[in-house]
């Protein structure tokens, strides 16, 4: 009788775990926009979107390994990614979301990164990812586009 009860409990727990896993996970504040903007459209004309609130969707191709404070989303076009950055501690994205899809919302920030800034970022990222970074890959100043936000849905 006890074994049967234990088996039932385990099945219920397993079913609940599967149900929870299948659900989408919400992080931070609720998404408010209804229209999804293509990442490729933002890159095609960053200045047009600078300071504007957008909702973007894509695969999560990278996650901040230290604080979970940013996601890199793949664009609708290949070879393009966009970073979704949140204030440290506001949202902590677990690394388990890597490879899943996300819908995020925030304000587009456009800034020009100097060579020195890119090199510093490259070294920091390489240290975080335990890889190496070659400063020679930096050819000149680069326009950096990111989404500063407070809310995301991962599915």
């Amino acid at each position, binding site marked *: 009788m006890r074994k049967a009860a234990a088996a039932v409990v385990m099945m219920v727990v397993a079913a609940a775990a599967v149900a929870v896993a299948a659900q989408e996970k919400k992080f931070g504040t609720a998404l408010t926009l209804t229209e999804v903007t293509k990442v490729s459209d933002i890159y095609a004309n960053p200045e047009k979107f600078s300071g504007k609130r957008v909702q973007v969707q894509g*695969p*999560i*191709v990278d996650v901040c390994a230290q*604080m979970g404070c940013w996601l890199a989303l793949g664009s609708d076009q*290949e070879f393009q990614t966009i970073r979704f950055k949140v204030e440290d501690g506001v949202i902590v994205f*677990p*690394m*388990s979301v890597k*490879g899943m*899809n996300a819908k995020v919302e925030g304000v587009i920030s456009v800034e020009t990164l100097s060579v020195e800034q890119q090199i510093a970022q490259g070294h920091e990222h390489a240290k975080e990812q335990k890889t190496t970074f070659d400063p020679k890959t930096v050819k000149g100043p680069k326009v950096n586009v990111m989404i500063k936000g407070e809310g995301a849905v991962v599915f």
Partner: protein
Amino acid sequence: MKWRRWNNTLHRDVGYLVVALTLVYGISGLAINHMADWNPSYRQQKTALTIQPLTATDRDGMIKEALPQLGITEEPRNAFRPDPDTLQIFLPEKTYLIDVPTGQVIVDRVRPRPVLFEMNQMHLNATKGVWTVIADVYAVALIFMAISGMFVLRGKTGFTGRGKWFVLGGALVPLGYYILR
């Protein structure tokens, strides 16, 4: 003195209540404090292997070529090409980073550190919601412990005795840091 008896009883019992949370925040604090040197929440393991260079020119064709060579039978979560020479294949807890022209692969395996991951999630209030309330109550309990602790003993070893000098010494640590840094 009746208030001191209450103070000591509450100090003792609240102290018992916060033992577990203090250990969680203390251990996690040590781990997070040295984040620059290690990843306190995840164990990251990178291994290298080589497969045949991928000849397909589109993403789906590359995936079809790569999966059997990598021995992957499950459906990947996702795949992405960050640049023309790289294909990323995502599985739960594992990312395959394939250099398309050479077939060199880096397998990036990320697993949460047992116990420490959960402790850090609590410390960083990653889940928000109910934990925010628990953390607030814990913070108030710590403030109470600090204040009530000063009045547990009377006489020479109490606050009015040598205790005040210890309290002053302890206060000088954060004060001194901000003045001298």
